[in-house]
């Protein structure tokens, strides 16, 4: 699924990518989502906070995979066949683990969307700044 395929919505509308972790659903602005990949294997990063589930290589780049269940109060997800949403942010890529296959919805601009992740603010807040827990 590619970004240019996802984006629709005429003027006055905005498209979001919806993905699920545990019992909860999160939304991301569709333009932030570069692609969705199946996870073949994920590699732990010792020393990283627990919300960094690991990292995986994707076309020569290493993408950190974020487990939102460690940040938000969510019942422990099973991640039986997890997907990873690859996000473009601050000239970097990070990934969000999803238990479900993400889908896209379009709303009018004036609708306030709950559980929307502002990716820039997320990146800045949870970016690991020193050794130790990332939210510092």
């Amino acid at each position, binding site marked *: 699924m590619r970004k240019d395929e996802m984006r629709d919505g005429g003027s006055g509308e905005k498209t979001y990518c919806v993905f699920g972790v545990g019992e909860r659903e999160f939304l991301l602005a569709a333009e932030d989502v570069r692609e969705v990949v199946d996870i073949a294997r994920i590699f*732990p990063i*010792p020393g990283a906070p627990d919300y960094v589930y690991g990292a995986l290589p994707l076309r020569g780049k290493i993408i950190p995979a974020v487990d939102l269940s460690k940040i938000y109060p969510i019942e422990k997800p099973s991640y*039986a066949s997890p997907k990873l949403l690859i996000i473009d942010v601050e000239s*970097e890529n990070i990934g969000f683990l999803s238990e479900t296959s993400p889908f896209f919805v379009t709303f009018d601009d004036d609708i306030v969307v709950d559980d929307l992740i502002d990716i820039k603010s997320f990146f800045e807040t949870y970016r690991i700044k020193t050794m130790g827990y990332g939210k510092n």
Partner: protein
Amino acid sequence: MGKTDRSELLEYFLAEAEDYLNVLSRGIPELEISSDRPALLEELFRAAHTLKGAAAIVRLTVTSSLAHSMEDILETFKDKHIVIKKDVIDLLLSMLDAVAHIVRDISEGKEENGAFEMKFTEQVAEVMAQAGGPVDAFDRFNLMEEAAASTLTPPGAVNEAIEQPVAPQEAPEAAPMGGAKVSPDVPVKAQEAVAKRKDDVEYFFGNFVRIDLKKIEDMFNLISEVTIMKNAMLKKTKEAGEVSEEVLFAGKRLLEEVNAFADRHAYTITDNTKYIDPLFSEFGDLEFDRYDEQNLFSRKLQELTEDITEALKELMQFFGFFQDDIKSLDKIVKFLRSDLSESRMIDIGRLFQRFVRPVKDMAREHDKRVDLQIAGQSTKIDRVIFENLFDPLMHMIRNCIGHGIEKGEQRTKSGKRREGIISLSARREGINITIEITDDGAGIDTNKVFAAAVKQGLVKPDATLSREEILSLIFLPGFSTAGATDMISGRGVGMNAIRSQISNINGTLELSTEVGKGTTFRIRVPSSLAITNVIVFAYGAMEFVMPTSLIEEVVQYEPVDDKSGDRKESLDLVYHRGTPIQAKRLSDVFYIAGNGHEGKRDNFVLVCSISNKRVGLIVDDVLGQEEAIIKPVNRFLEGLSIYSGITISGDGLVRLVLNPIKIFEEETRTFLVTPPEIESFEGRRVLIVDDSLSVRKYLSTFLTARNLKVYSAGNGNEALKILEETEVDLIITDLEMPVMHGYELVSRLKGSDTLKAIPIIVLTSRSTGKHREKALELGADDYLVKPFDERSLVASLKKYSLIPG
């Protein structure tokens, strides 16, 4: 300057000149119409100025002189804000053409044509006089006459140039200007020239194009992807080859069996044989071979098996050729990588030259005389390293001048030359570059360093430290020489920061010093950051790498029985060449302990020399040495300073690049103490016992994807052999297998004191209660039926703590 040096420099000059000539060519005609003339004049002035300087460096005196004249004219108009007439523009364009002509000659291996030099003297003087420019411009031309006379221009070339003014047809690429000539006697209508120039003039010399560094980085990324893909293909081909061999072996066995069967039944006629062809009824059994269906079938089977074996042989041959092709591809990719890597390399001399002026200025500020001696300028170094070395070198040179080199009187008293010497040298040592900054100053007194460290509470007063250990204190975070500058020549200030900057480019910093004689700082950096030679090592189930430039030696783990209690809790003592050195386990760095590390042994120590001090990193296994493309850590993770990068192995494993300097010197122990959950399951081992290759492969893929390490056996007997040498956390076994079936295996395992604790999952196609009960009765822990439901297997894996529950 040798001939080779000059020709190399000329290539750089040609690339540079091309840019400036094009700037001038586009800009000069614009002077008439530009709305922002001051900015344009400034741009043109800069281009002429830089062209002049560049030409002078490569001893192109005529070019330099012409560029200088253009610079003078442009500067005059820039400063005086007066109208630029068409004749001035024409003159500038003519001069530009002359320069372009000369530069083209140079690019074709000819010498400078001195005939151009005096062509514009009068016109320039006239323009300058009208505009009120500097008078010396005219004088300079007179002075240049002498220089022109001494150039090595062949006499014929001079005449040729004089007789044949530069015209577009003579230098079509250099100056396709539609009639603009250098001779002032044949003026060209400016408008024509302007119109033509705007569209047509583009200079191109030499073989250079400028490429954005990011483009090269992108190409590197693509090459690294090709390398990974290639390695993955190589691995898969190898695996496929192994499977083929297995099948070939099975095919041979089948052929033997079939042959034996065919031999037994080739002509056997049993009593109840029904003749296939009644035509043969008159022949007796021994008179004519008769074939019943069994005979025919066995023959057919024989033929088919032979066909299959033949096809498999061809397949094996194909894999052989395919592997050869991939190896050739491997070589090509390596060449490509190496060429691309070289394109990022720069002569370190360009970096060293940047210090010439500051050294003079700083020496003057400190009222000292310093001679900066530079060596090894042509040593090539990665551009990224080049850029990252400037600050640390500047800091060290500043310290050398400020605190290392003594004042003149003091030096004279000590019997030294009044003028201090700072030498800056670079040399290539294998894959590394060693840079030394040496001064012949006062040196560093270790007694005073020790005293300062004691005063700051960094060491106990009664600590016994070697000279090397004392010097390493200078690099400690928090070590300060404030108030003690004169004692240790101020070297401690900022040394930690400098070392940190160098460690960011996988470099090391050491110093050697002698009181009264001077100090040498030795920086060792890899020549390229893009491709780095690394040692691959394992700790638990994880693989890490460290650049070989940072590792002094790899030794066997030999702990020191230390009862003194002096050592730090986080550090072990191990022997290195008979001497105890401090060492650290990775588990102490980021808490891997208890997470897949049980049963593993500390086998090796990676000995690193960090700022004059040897330390060791204790690891389980050293897996080898290889060239790796190190990528920077994702910005989301950049705070994890113990990693200086990330690499991807040939088979797609993510390997973190450890930075030993951060591991050993950031003793603040702020590392994460709660192990991420995923780690606790990393590296659990599963033994699959099944006679079916497909089942083994399928299960292996399924389990490997869940970060489990998998061992495989074709029957119970093979499984027991594996278990003699390897500890596993779970066994998944089939029931029906040759040599030793599953029931016997379960029975033997549960009867063994050492193996009975290992959980056993029986995975069989037998679904009856009878089979199940027998397996569970013998001690199997779980019973799954093929084709198995992945969720059931996942549930069992969770039940036995093989994956997170």
